[in-house]
């Protein structure tokens, strides 16, 4: 046994080359803040394993993708769990990459000499989001299908080369048969290969420059002295394995347990109907991590939209990539970098408020809105009763809520008669206002007076 071990050890260089890497010294103060990067890596590995497992059965063809995924979910032994791990693992990876990015930003880890470690990380963040997006289409349900239209329309607004870019994205002139296989190849081969390359680069750079020490107020990064300073720290440090790594292991295992538990007890989301371009009673929604973008595009002034669609990603990318070169020295600790705190606060606040809005989508008309509730129609007679029918027929109910039923696009009309006189209502209906269409050429005089009679009954007392 000993002979075999020493032969393998000699030929593979386990003790001489690999152990020194695994046990490389890290600063003593490495704490629980350092666990998110390794957990993101574990989430990625989980995605690779479950992704390969899904690919054993999934058929990336438009006429079979949906059915094969239904088969995986409903009939394959533990298929629902495997798909569930892949689904919740994707969320975990997006969250962990995000937290890791915020953590190293707040700790100023991107500063000298770890500028390129940060750059590789920014690229990994972009690749993670690309995986999340391309994965949506592979479900090949209505949500995934329409999300590609949305991206195409955004890309198409790039000046001059917008249309060629769209064609390259969707592999043709419209979202069709070739789009799925293109996204499959990207999701399964191209982007993962890039992720492997950049994780390799990222980890190599972490080893080359060492795990950063906890930032300390009053100890700014000075490139002339930093390496000597760091060298003294790790001379007095602890081996990464196992003294520091055990925290990574504990946290990653916790992430794994949560993901598997969600997969088992909650399960993957239902597929919302096979792709059918002619079945338009659909209500496309992005996965939750893109819900804030969805909300942004519904709420921002249309005049700004092109600047945000085109400038936003470019600007964010440039800022993130340029950051370590613009601010390579100086204080690392967040308490001495108020702008860093303000930026993260702004980011979290906007995403925190936009995400719930995106999930609720109050700006979307409710196309299949049901009838007005009995509490509204009860006791109505004559013209007002007719008006309630007109309210329904003309689509008013799709955008306006009355007694908790209807869309949220326009103002709640439960007590509209408190605010507006019949004459004012008539003008708004005929001429429209803001997002309210003008119904002038679209409604008879009788219908108009009926619907106004109906709305005049909507008083609070």
């Amino acid at each position, binding site marked *: 046994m000993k002979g075999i071990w020493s032969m393998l050890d000699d030929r593979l260089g386990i003790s001489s080359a690999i152990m020194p890497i695994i046990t490389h010294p890290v600063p003593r103060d490495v704490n629980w803040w350092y666990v998110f990067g390794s957990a993101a890596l574990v989430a990625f590995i989980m995605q690779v394993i479950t992704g390969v497992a899904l690919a054993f059965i999934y058929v990336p063809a438009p*006429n079979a993708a949906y059915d094969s995924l239904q088969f995986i979910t409903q009939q394959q032994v533990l298929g629902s769990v495997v798909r569930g791990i892949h689904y919740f693992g994707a969320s975990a990876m997006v969250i962990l990459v995000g937290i890791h990015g915020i953590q190293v930003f707040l700790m100023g880890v991107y500063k000298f000499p770890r500028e390129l470690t940060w750059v590789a990380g920014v690229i990994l963040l972009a690749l993670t989001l690309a995986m999340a997006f391309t994965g949506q289409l592979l479900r090949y349900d209505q949500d995934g299908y329409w999300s590609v239209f949305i991206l195409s329309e955004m890309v198409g607004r790039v000046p001059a080369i917008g249309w060629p870019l769209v064609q390259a994205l969707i592999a043709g002139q419209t979202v069709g048969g070739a789009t799925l296989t293109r996204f499959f190849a990207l999701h399964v081969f191209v982007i993962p290969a890039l992720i492997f390359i950049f994780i390799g680069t990222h980890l190599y750079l972490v080893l080359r420059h060492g795990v950063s020490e906890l930032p300390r107020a009053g100890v700014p990064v000075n490139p002339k002295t930093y390496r000597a300073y760091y060298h003294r720290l790790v001379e007095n440090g602890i081996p990464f394995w196992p003294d520091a790594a055990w925290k990574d292991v504990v946290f990653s295992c916790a992430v794994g347990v949560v993901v598997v538990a969600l997969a088992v007890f909650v399960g993957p989301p239902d597929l919302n109907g096979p792709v059918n*371009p002619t079945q338009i009673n659909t209500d496309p929604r992005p996965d939750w991590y893109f819900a804030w973008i969805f909300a942004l595009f519904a709420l921002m002034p249309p005049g700004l939209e092109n600047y945000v669609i085109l400038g936003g990603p470019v600007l964010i990318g440039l800022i993130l990539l340029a950051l370590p070169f613009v601010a390579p020295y100086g204080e690392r600790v967040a308490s001495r970098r108020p702008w860093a705190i303000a930026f993260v606060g702004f980011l979290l606040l906007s995403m925190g408020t936009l995400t719930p809005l995106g999930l609720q989508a109050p700006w979307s008309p409710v196309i299949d809105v049901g009838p007005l509730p009995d509490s509204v129609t009860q006791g109505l007679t004559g013209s007002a009763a007719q008006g309630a029918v007109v309210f329904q027929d003309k689509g008013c109910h799709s955008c306006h809520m009355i007694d908790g039923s209807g869309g949220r696009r326009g103002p709640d009309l439960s007590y509209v008669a408190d605010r507006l006189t019949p004459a004012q209502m008539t003008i708004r209906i005929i001429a429209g206002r803001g997002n309210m*269409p003008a119904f002038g050429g679209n409604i008879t005089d009788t219908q108009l007076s009926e619907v106004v009679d109906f709305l005049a009954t909507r008083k609070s007392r």
Partner: protein
Amino acid sequence: MSDDQAPPETIPPADRAPAPPLLAEEASRRGFFARISVALMGLAGAAVGLPVLSYLVTPWLRPAPQEWTTMGPVDSFTVGQTVLKAIPDVSPLPWAGQVAESAIWVRRDSDQTFTVFAINCTHLGCPVNWRPDANLFLCPCHGGVYYSDGTVAGGPPPRPLFQHETRIQGGQLQVRTRPLGIG
């Protein structure tokens, strides 16, 4: 970024061994081999890369033809009504299944004239719904609304709905396929 020099402690002076003197002939041989190797790798890369790249950007090199598709006899459409119809994609693939088709809104305006709208909202491409009683197209994504002639009635869309060309031949309505419209 005032000083890009590596701090002295990372490269101890003892490690900076002087390079052995090269013979001029040896140096030029080395330079030649390096250059020829890089050139060969570049050539091999281009030989593999260019065909692959062209294969991937086929739609740029060979735009799909926009063809006339027969939708049915003119009289199968009622004047004044707007109906949902399927139309083959610009370039359908044999294995495309349902996505070999797109949807269009067809309205017979008068005896001999039709208006055909692409289904995609000009804001971000979601499928618009026709509400016949309200005479409006509603988009389920960001709340775009269009009048019956396709002009914007409300919400974020930047322009009217895209239209397909139509013609009538031998009593049949024909609609021309078109690429995805970009708002």
